[in-house]
Every structure is written in structure tokens, then in C-alpha cells.
């Protein structure tokens, strides 16, 4: 089995008496994108900083490709790319000189750095702005620059902390497309975000942090499934036939059945069992079925239910 790109075991970080991250256990395999969700102050940034070797652990271990972030911090940084949503730039530098500086800080020769910078500028569509000062770039472009900087040394672990913060929807979509493109067999990506649709779109697994503790870790599909174990809403659109009488359908188990013209809406805990019976009854009454919509749980609902349940447990 391939070595995990990132392996956190009971990672704990305390600032004085306050625990920012408590016994976080998490692995990221090569080729995997793991989204870390959580409210402000949940410990997402602390987790990223720990994994990047920027701050130390209070307890536990964190390894990147088997290298311990405490004992081998410098070597760990050779394998980690970091994009922080709130990081600043050296605004007076040009894009090319900025990236060249960082490329050389990873030990590249002047020639190798120039070549790598040219490739990344091309890939990210920034070539025509290579001579522009960073201070003159839009927020979307600056985030691309941050991504380019993080990719200079082709890291096996990419850490993205609120990387799409402050981007307009179009720029954020383009940025997500870049992240998706960066998924490779040997690279693992950790994506800390507040944007649940972003996590849903990109992540193979989702980790939910609440007050420094991991309260859930699973695939987005399973998290959504788990959260929709209760009652779900069904809407059926029909055509023709005689008027639908709600009383004729309540025997199959739908609750709160309401008819609005050609639309029926009801709630059920068992849509797989109830829907076919309701549809059969409607067809039997001469109706045509235009569409049946069973509301599925979103990652946002799953996330909120997890966070609320965690708060209620405390």
C-alpha cells in the first residue's frame, strides 16, 4: 500500500489553556481530495498550519509522506504546497520575479526556476501578466498566483485554506476547475473551506471540525445519506384525469399531503415504498405523471445537522 500523503494521529494543538485542535486523526491518500469543513474557529487553519510545519504540535504526530513535521520540518516543506486565502503578496514585485524568488527558495537553479515559472504561468493563463506588479492584479489572479507559487516544486501535498475567499463566482469556478485538474495519482489535496458546494463538487472525503474536534469524516454521499434518514419531501406533477382527492392517497402512508392544481406535495420517511403506490393510484385515476421530485439532502444540510447535533451533545 502506498504511503499516505498526510497522516495525522491524535494531533493536538493548544494555545495556552485554549485547545485549537484536539486529537485530530486524519489521513490523505495519494490522489485524494479531502475537504475540511467547520465554523470559524473550529481549528481548520490550525490543522493546515500544523501540516505545513508552520506551527508545532502540542501532542500527537503529523507525517507527510512518512516524514515527521516536527523532526523533519524542512524536508516536509519540500513536499507541501500551501495556499492561504488571507495571505499577502509582495505587491511591488512583478509576477515573474515573485515566482522565481519562491522557486529558488525550493533549491531550483536560476535556469530551472525560470523554466518552471514559465510553464506554470502558461498553465494558469498568466503569461501575459508575467511582467505586471502583483499589486495591480485582481483578487482572482492573485489567488492563481498563490496557487502557482504552491505548485512550483510540484508538491505531493497541497494545502488550500479558504483559497476561494473573496473571489467572484466566475473566478471561484475557474479556481475550482484548476483544483480538480490538479488531482493526480500521487498528489493529495486538503481543502479547507466554508463553501459546502465547493466541498461537494471536489472532495472525495469530507471532515467536519467543531471546536477543534473531528465530529464526522466520510464521503459526501454517505454524509448526505446519513443526514436524510428522517422524513423527506416528495413533489409530483401530474396532467389530465379527474381531480386528485388527497383522501384517496393517504392510505399509502404519505403525510401532510397537499394538492396545488397539478402539483402534489407530501412527506414520507419511506419514499422507495410510498412513491410507487402513489404514482400507481394517480395513473389509475387517469393522470399522466410529468415528474417526481424527491428532495435529497444537500451537503449543507448534512453539515448543519452534524454541527447542531454536536452542539446539542455538549
Amino acid at each position, binding site marked *: 500500500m502506498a504511503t499516505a500523503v498526510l497522516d495525522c494521529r491524535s494531533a493536538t494543538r493548544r494555545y495556552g489553556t485554549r485547545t*485549537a485542535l484536539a486529537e485530530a486523526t486524519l489521513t490523505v491518500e495519494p490522489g485524494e481530495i479531502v475537504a475540511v469543513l467547520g465554523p470559524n474557529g473550529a481549528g481548520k487553519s490550525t490543522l493546515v498550519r500544523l501540516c505545513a510545519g508552520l506551527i508545532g504540535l502540542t501532542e500527537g504526530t503529523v507525517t507527510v509522506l512518512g516524514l515527521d513535521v516536527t523532526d523533519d520540518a524542512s524536508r516536509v516543506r519540500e513536499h*507541501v504546497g500551501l495556499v492561504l486565502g488571507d495571505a499577502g503578496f509582495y505587491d511591488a514585485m512583478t509576477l515573474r520575479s515573485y515566482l522565481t524568488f519562491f522557486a529558488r527558495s525550493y*533549491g531550483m537553479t536560476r535556469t530551472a526556476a525560470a523554466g518552471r515559472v514559465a510553464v506554470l504561468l502558461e498553465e494558469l493563463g498568466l503569461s501575459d501578466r508575467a511582467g505586471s506588479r502583483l499589486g495591480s492584479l485582481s483578487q482572482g489572479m492573485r489567488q492563481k498566483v498563490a496557487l502557482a*507559487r504552491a505548485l512550483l516544486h510540484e508538491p*505531493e501535498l497541497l494545502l488550500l485554506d479558504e483559497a476561494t475567499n473573496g473571489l467572484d463566482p466566475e473566478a471561484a469556478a475557474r479556481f475550482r476547475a484548476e483544483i480538480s485538474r490538479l488531482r493526480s495519482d500521487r498528489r493529495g489535496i486538503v481543502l479547507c473551506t466554508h463553501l459546502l458546494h465547493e466541498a461537494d463538487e471536489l472532495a472525495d472525503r469530507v471532515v467536519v471540525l467543531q471546536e477543534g474536534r473531528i465530529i464526522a469524516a466520510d464521503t459526501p454521499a454517505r454524509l448526505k445519506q446519513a443526514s436524510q434518514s428522517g422524513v423527506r419531501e416528495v413533489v409530483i406533477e401530474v396532467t389530465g384525469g379527474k381531480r386528485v382527492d388527497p383522501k384517496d392517497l393517504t392510505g399509502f402512508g404519505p403525510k401532510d399531503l397537499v394538492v396545488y392544481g397539478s402539483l402534489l406535495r407530501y412527506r414520507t420517511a419511506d419514499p422507495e415504498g410510498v412513491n410507487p403506490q402513489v404514482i400507481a393510484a394517480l395513473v389509475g385515476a387517469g393522470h399522466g405523471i410529468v415528474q417526481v421530485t424527491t428532495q435529497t439532502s444537500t451537503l449543507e444540510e448534512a453539515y448543519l445537522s452534524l454541527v447542531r447535533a454536536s452542539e446539542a451533545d455538549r
Partner: protein
Amino acid sequence: MTGSQAPSVWQGTVLVAGRELGELRRNRQVLFQFVVFGTVFPVFLALTLRPTGGAPQNFAFVVIAIAPHLGTLPAILQAFVGERAERTLAPLLATPLANQSIFLGKVLAVYLPALCVGALGLGIFATTVALSPPEQPNLPALPPGVTPESLGFPTVQPGVTAAQLGEAFALSLAVGLAVLVLGIVASTRTNTVKSAQTLAALLGLPIYAGVAFLSFRLTSSPLQVLTGALIAVPVLLLALFAVARKWRREEAILGRAGRARAG
């Protein structure tokens, strides 16, 4: 990975210092001070003070050799607390550059230019003084054929001795290091450039007082001054390297107050 290994401490130091020098080059306030203290002021002082020793000459030495360092304090604060406040430090600290490389690169990029400007200014001062015409005694008009020398009033050729220049340069070394230590201490105790400036102004009072004191002592007791400077330089260098060894990424990222609110 495309990159080979992380640069050595010295390679990294040169790399960081190069970038910081670029920032310094764009800092108009510091550049202005460098031009003024390195070229304009030495010529002005040499021509106006007509130094022949004593307090005016001491004042000139102190201003020329030491002032460039005092003027770099904002650049030091910007390099440390300023970068933290502007959040540009985290990407740099995420690279495999050694802590010492980042620290020394920032420090040397401020210290060495100020030292060079001080040395340049002293050189210009000495040259201007040497090229100045001899100073005539202030006598009423003399009859033809009578010279001041014949009356027992020798003309004085102003000049600067190598010992004086050496003393001034040693002072420049010591005061520059003291300003660096002051800037770094202020940076580690604060989270904004403004508060760092306030603290540095307060902590810097002994340095400024010492400079004022030295401006009167420089040539009156050259051996003491030189000895003092030669003791101060290694002590301050040791202090600087001790800080470099203790300097941690975490402290640089979070600052002191920042630790409490990091999430």
C-alpha cells in the same frame, strides 16, 4: 518534485537578502536618507564646519557614520512585524528555507547597505575636507609682504586622520547592530508596525543618548571609544546570532498576541 534540495543556510540568506534589498530599493524614505547621509550631508558638513578637530568634527563623524543606521529602523520593523501584519510572511515560512536564512537575510539586507552608506559618507567627508583650501587665521588686512606665518599665526590645513575614520567606522558597526537588535526586539513584542515604532522609540532612548554622548567623546578619548566599540561589536553580534538561533517560525507567524486568537 522539480526542485532539488533546500538551499544551504548561506544560499538561502543571500536569496532572502536579495529580495529584501529589492524592497529597500523601493523604500523612498530610506533611499532619501541614504542619499542625504551618504553624499549630500558629508559635503555640506565638510564645507560648512571647516573641521579642524574638536566638537564640530565629532558631530560630523557621528552624523555621517551613525545616522544611516538610525534611518533604517522602519525598514527593520517592516521586514519583521510589517510582513507579519501584511500576511506576507506565511508563504515565505512555508518554504524549506532555514530559519537562520530568513532571519539573517532580512537583517543583513538592512545592516550592510547602512554600513556602506556610512563608510561612503565618511570617505566623501574626508576627501572634501582634504581638498578644502587651508584655513586662514581671522586677522585684519596685512601690509604687502607680511604673512600670517611671519606674525606667528600659522594657517591650518584641515584634515581627518585614519584613526578618526577608524573610530567612526567602529561606532557605525556597533550602533548599526544595536539598532538591529532594537528593531528585532520591538518586532517580537508587537503585532503592528505602529506599535513596534512606539516601542522602538522608547527602547531606543539609551542608544540615542549614547550617540549624543559619543559625539563629544569621539576624539577627546579615542582609545576609549575604539575599545568600547570593539567590545560592543562582538557582544552585539553574539546577541544577534543568539536571536537568530532562537527565532522560530511559529513566533514569526503568530506574534505574541496572535497566539491567543489563532484558530
